[in-house]
Structure formats: structure tokens, C-alpha cells
């Protein structure tokens, strides 16, 4: 990609000897364009923070290349990479107040005081810390320290902004508010940013593209909508989405011109064969066994269909989350009207072919996605 601010080429990270130690990041390659906001999303220990720290230069790159604005930087120390980073663990300078912490990098640039103050005021207002600028770090709450630390990174002039769990310590209400503001702030200035987060709501709300990581492997690198509609494998399918995607192993059979999916518990769903595109149908029959995934909002209750028994029914104000025992497991339904079912009720479930994601049971790789089936 031309004009990529950041390019990772086959990057590996080993803790310990190369080839022998803990292989924390495995052969990760990605391009980040100017003005993009990228989220590295994954659970703890997935390699996302190691990747970020390699980009920043705080961790050695065990193998592979990192290009930043056209320069190869994997052997350069952090100060020469021209990146700004906000740390998860705040790391404010304890001996100076919040204002001086934030303005620290600007002081080195010898900007006039009025310009520094204006910049600090702007970013402080955005992050709702205008009222604590004169306070010392040790008198602040975790959330305040984190925002000060974020401000200190954002105020700098850098090619790339690295934000490690920038909102982890904040309260839910504030987090929701700041997400929108932060995105606006970054976009308005054409900044390029990579944030590490384990919170998919945050990733969805902030990022143009999300890099989903697990076991050190980049599982999928795509837009939030693409991740949702076309998960590359079972991992991203079940990791992204709240509540998570329902997955069930099924065996595929043909019965009197109908395509039948048989579940472990004995339930089955039958479809007209032409409900599936020819090549999908062929792939299904060729494998015989597949794993199907269906998003909770796409599970429908109906007069016909496969039976399930309601386990819980939780109303959240704007949607109901119903779980039911189904096919030796649990199926989750999201309904936007209040669901009037009680625990123990028998419901009948229908899954539309247009909503089915099909995965290979061995490799976990996606075979096809609902909308292209029909």
C-alpha cells in the first residue's frame, strides 16, 4: 500500500531465545494508512500489547521488519521513531502537576507559553480534565491519571499515536462519552492511531479497522462491519459480537430434495435445497460435518422449527436476552421487543439460511457467510 504510515512485515516476538522462547507474536503483517484508526483487539495474552510495544520500540523485534513513514525502524530506539504513546499504567511524572505532565513534550519544542497553554486547554477540555490541571498525579483517581496520560500522548506531534488500553480505568458513562470525542479529535487532525483494547465496543466505536489477535496470530484485519458479517474463522466469529455468536456442530444430510442440518441433541432444521447457492450446497455435502454460526439477533422464534427450552430471560430495557438449552448446548436469542417467555418454556427456533455462517470443523476457517448463501 502506498502512503502507509506503518507497515509490519512478518513480525515475530519471542520472549527468550528466538525459536525457543515464548512465541508471543507470530508472523504478523499489516499496513496502516495515514489517518487510520486501528484497534488491536484480543483477550489478555493474545500478543496485542507486545505488538504495540514493538512498534513503539520498547520491545525488541525478534524477527521481521517494521516500517514507519517509509523508514525501517525495528532497530531504532523509541526516541528516534517519532511515535507518541499513552501507557495503560498511567506513568505520569510524579513530581510535576498535571499541566506540566501534559505539556512536557511541548516544552522541549520551545513553543511560546500561550500556545502551550492553548493546546493543553484544548485537549484537557476534550478529556474532561480541565479542572485538575494544577493537581499533582498522586492526588488523582485512576481514571483521571489515565486521561492525563492520554492527553500527554495526544498533544505531541508524532507520525503515529499508540494508545494502550486508553480508557480501561474509566467509568462506563465517561467511557461512552469520550469514545466519540476521541475519535472526532483524532480524525479532525488527521492523526494515525493504533489502540490496544480488549473491549470490542471500544474497538467498534473508535476504529476504522480492527486487528483481531489470538495466540499471537493476527486472526483477521478488517472493518467492524466486515468482522461482523464475514468473520474469517470461528475465533473471530465468536469473539466479536455481544452477545457472542451461537455455534453448533451439525451434520448435513439430504432428505427428499431438502437439505437437512442435524444437531447433536437430535434436533434438525430442513431447508429447500435451493435456499443455498450451488457451490455452498456442494461444500456442505462434500464435508458432511460443518459448524454453523448464527448471531443471537438472527435466531427467530416461530410456530415451527426446532425445539429448545428456555433457561433465562433477561430484559435489559431495550432488548431481551433469552438463553435456551438446544442441541446439547445453549442458544442465545436477542429480541428487541420484550420477550414474554418464562424459564422452562418450550420454544421453537428457526434459523434463516441468510443468517448462517458456515465453518470447517477441522480448521475453523469460514466456508461461507449467510448473505452470500441465498
Amino acid at each position, binding site marked *: 500500500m502506498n502512503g502507509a504510515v506503518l507497515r509490519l512485515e512478518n513480525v515475530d516476538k519471542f520472549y527468550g531465545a528466538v525459536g525457543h522462547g515464548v512465541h508471543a507474536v507470530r508472523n504478523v503483517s499489516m499496513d496502516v494508512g495515514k489517518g487510520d484508526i486501528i484497534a488491536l483487539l484480543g*483477550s*489478555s495474552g493474545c500478543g496485542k500489547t507486545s505488538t504495540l510495544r514493538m512498534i513503539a520500540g520498547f520491545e525488541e523485534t525478534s524477527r521481521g521488519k517494521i516500517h514507519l513513514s517509509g523508514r525501517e525502524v525495528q532497530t531504532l530506539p523509541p526516541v528516534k521513531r517519532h511515535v507518541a504513546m499513552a501507557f495503560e499504567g498511567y506513568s505520569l511524572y510524579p513530581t510535576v502537576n498535571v499541566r506540566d505532565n501534559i505539556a512536557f513534550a511541548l516544552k522541549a519544542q520551545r513553543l511560546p507559553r500561550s500556545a502551550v497553554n492553548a493546546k493543553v486547554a484544548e485537549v484537557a477540555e476534550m478529556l474532561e480534565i480541565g479542572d485538575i490541571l494544577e493537581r499533582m498525579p498522586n492526588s488523582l483517581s485512576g481514571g483521571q491519571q489515565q486521561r492525563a496520560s492520554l492527553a500527554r500522548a495526544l498533544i505531541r506531534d508524532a507520525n503515529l499515536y499508540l494508545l494502550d488500553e486508553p480508557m480501561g480505568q474509566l*467509568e*462506563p*458513562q465517561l467511557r*461512552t462519552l469520550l469514545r466519540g470525542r476521541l475519535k472526532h479529535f483524532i480524525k479532525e487532525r488527521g492523526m494515525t492511531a493504533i489502540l490496544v483494547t*480488549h*473491549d*470490542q*465496543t471500544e474497538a*467498534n*466505536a473508535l476504529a476504522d479497522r480492527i486487528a483481531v489477535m489470538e495466540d499471537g496470530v493476527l486472526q483477521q484485519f478488517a472493518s*467492524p*462491519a466486515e468482522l*461482523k458479517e464475514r468473520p474469517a474463522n470461528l475465533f473471530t466469529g*465468536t*469473539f466479536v*459480537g*455481544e*452477545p*457472542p455468536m451461537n455455534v453448533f456442530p451439525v451434520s448435513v444430510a439430504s432428505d427428499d430434495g431438502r437439505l437437512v442440518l442435524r444437531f447433536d441433541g437430535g434436533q434438525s432444521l430442513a431447508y429447500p435445497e435451493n435456499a443455498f447457492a450451488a457451490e455452498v450446497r456442494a461444500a456442505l455435502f462434500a464435508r458432511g460435518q460443518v459448524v454453523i454460526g448464527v*448471531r*443471537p*439477533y*438472527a435466531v427467530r422464534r416461530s410456530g415451527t422449527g426446532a425445539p429448545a427450552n428456555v*433457561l*433465562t430471560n*433477561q*430484559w*435489559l*430495557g*431495550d*432488548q431481551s*436476552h433469552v*438463553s435456551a438449552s438446544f442441541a446439547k448446548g*445453549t442458544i*442465545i436469542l*436477542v429480541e*428487541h*421487543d*420484550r420477550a414474554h417467555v418464562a424459564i422452562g418454556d418450550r420454544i421453537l427456533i428457526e434459523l434463516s439460511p441468510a443468517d448462517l455462517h458456515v465453518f470447517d470443523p477441522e480448521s475453523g476457517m469460514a466456508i461461507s457467510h449467510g448473505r452470500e448463501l441465498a
Partner: protein
Amino acid sequence: MSIQLSDVRKSFTNDLVLDGVSLDIPTGETLVLFGPSGAGKTVLLRLIAGVIDPDGGRIIVNGADMEGVVPEDRGIGMAFQNFALFPHMDAHANIASPLTARRETRSGIKARVKEVATLLKIDHVLAHRPMELSNGQKQRTALGRALAAEPSILLLDDPLRNVDAKLRFEMRLELPRLLKEQNATVIFVTQDYKEAMALGDRIAVMGDSGIVQIGTPEEIYLRPSSTRIARLFGDPTINLLDVVPEIGAHGPIIQLSGREIAISGSYAGAVGQACSLGIRPEAIHFVEPGAPGAFPVEIEAETPLNEKTVTLAATRNNREILVSRPSGAPGPDRGSAHVAFDMGNALLFDLATGARMIGTDAPANEMSK
């Protein structure tokens, strides 16, 4: 009543945390304490557990006044936000700790630990020490420890806070069943409104130094007593629009985007007063231009959020409103559109104080499309 608090007060060096909290929790109820951090939720749990003492007021558990009763004699199970597992003991010993205190037989303890661990699906890691457990396993071990002695009172201090979203969701589904099987009276602390809605028989919303509203999830969500509480529940948050009700041809109305919109007759008393109209994003619908109550908006942005599509739209007076609809439901994603408010679900608050206007006869009907 299995837990009764009356006028419980607590402050820490000039910082008044609880200013006269009273609460009755009947046996078997799950009460959620909900509120921002610093509202005193954890302090309240600790007072009930007896690890800190109140400055005043009475705490009565199962009919007995707890004053002077040490924590080990209160018969309470508790799970902590940071798990607070004993790092030098394996999961088995952690879960067994309430049983060893009661000097049960070794085989009895073993059987009970096994039973609890199986219920929580951690029976395969009982020999592991906490540092060898994943976050989810730690959380389940902590829960197992709280449940092991089958206490009649369970205090759960935000036990799902430190586990990832997927596990949190799974536990949210699993917990009600688990708790019902225990037959215990539960106080559950959380900052997540979805957990509060899903788990609570009742929710007590805590604000500055006390409980600001207590009620069923329906009451809290549909009839919040102030804008502040209304904003705490719902994602995205409720739309609040400054309005001044007027007298229309057929009763009180408000002006929105140059259109007159009728409001419930019970709001007649609010005419001429500066108010805040609260309407949840899911109670606003995209409609055809001519539909009743329709008014024009410009669509600014659209984002997916938890099985919903959230649209940010601007009214003609440049007021921003959020509209949400189920994922996959059709709707405009750019340009001009018309929306209508479901006024049966609109709430009116006093602009100055934030308090909901006209106490009890406001809409009680459920959300409907």
C-alpha cells in the same frame, strides 16, 4: 426480611460516604446495588459483612442485630471484585476455607468442594494455585468460595468486573440460576446497567452518599426519578431535549423542529416551565414524512452497537438526537429522514433540578415498537 438496614451512616475522615441508608431486603431476593464508583456500594457491603463498623444506624441480618458481631459469626458469603483469593492455597483450599472454619469432616469438605466446583465448571483446576488460573477461573473460584458453605446471605462485589466480555456475558446468563439454587438473599454490586437489569429482582441506585431510587428494573428503566438516573441506564443514553410545554388545541404540547407534538394530559401542570424531555433512542422511529408526529432530521453518523444500529441525527434546530433500531432492520443511513417519537414512552423532567415531573401517573406501559 433477611437484611434490614436502618439509618446506616459511615464516613471516612470527613468524607461522608453513607448518609443514613435504610433498606429492607426480603429473604430470597437479589438486590442490585448500582451506581458510579465512590457512591459507597462497596462500603455498604463491607458494613453488612462486618469488616468495617458503621458510625451509626442498625444492621439486622436474619432478625439479629449485627452490632458487635464479628465477621466470622455472621454466616455470610462474599465475593470480591479483585477476587481476593488466597495466593498460597490451591483452588480447592480456597473454596474449602469456609468449610474448614466449621470443622467439617475431611471427606465432607472434599465432596462439597467437588460439588461446587462442578457446578461452576472448575473441577479440573482444583489443584492449581490462583496464579496458575485464568481470570475466569479465578472469578469462579472466588464465587465457589462464597457459595461453599451455603450461606443464607451472599454479598457479591462486582464479581464480573475483571473478566472479559464473553465470560461476563456467560456468567450473567448463568448466575440467576446458580443463585436461585442457593436460595440465598443476594446483594450484587455492579457498575454495569445491563448486569443490574438482568440480575436484579430490585435495583437500588446509589448516588452521593445514599440510595437515590429503588425499584424493579422496569421501574428504574421506564420511570427513573431523575435525569441522572435515566442517563445511567441504557446504551446509548437517553436523549434529553430542553422544552417548554405549552397549551395546544387538545391539551399540552411541546415544539420540536417546528412541529407541535402532543404530550400526555397529565403534564398540564408543567406548562410554561423549563423542562427536559427524556426519550430513549429505541423509542424514536424512522417514519414516512406524512406520518403522525413526524418531523425532519439530517442524519450525521451511523454506528453498530451490540446488535443494534445507532444513528446520530440533527433536528432542524441543530439538536442532536440518537435513534436506535435492531441490527438488520431497514433504515436510512445518510441524508434527510423523518422520525417520530413514541410519546407514550417520553418522560418529562424539571430542567433545573433534574427530577421527574408529576410523580406517579407517568407512562407505565412497556416499550413497544
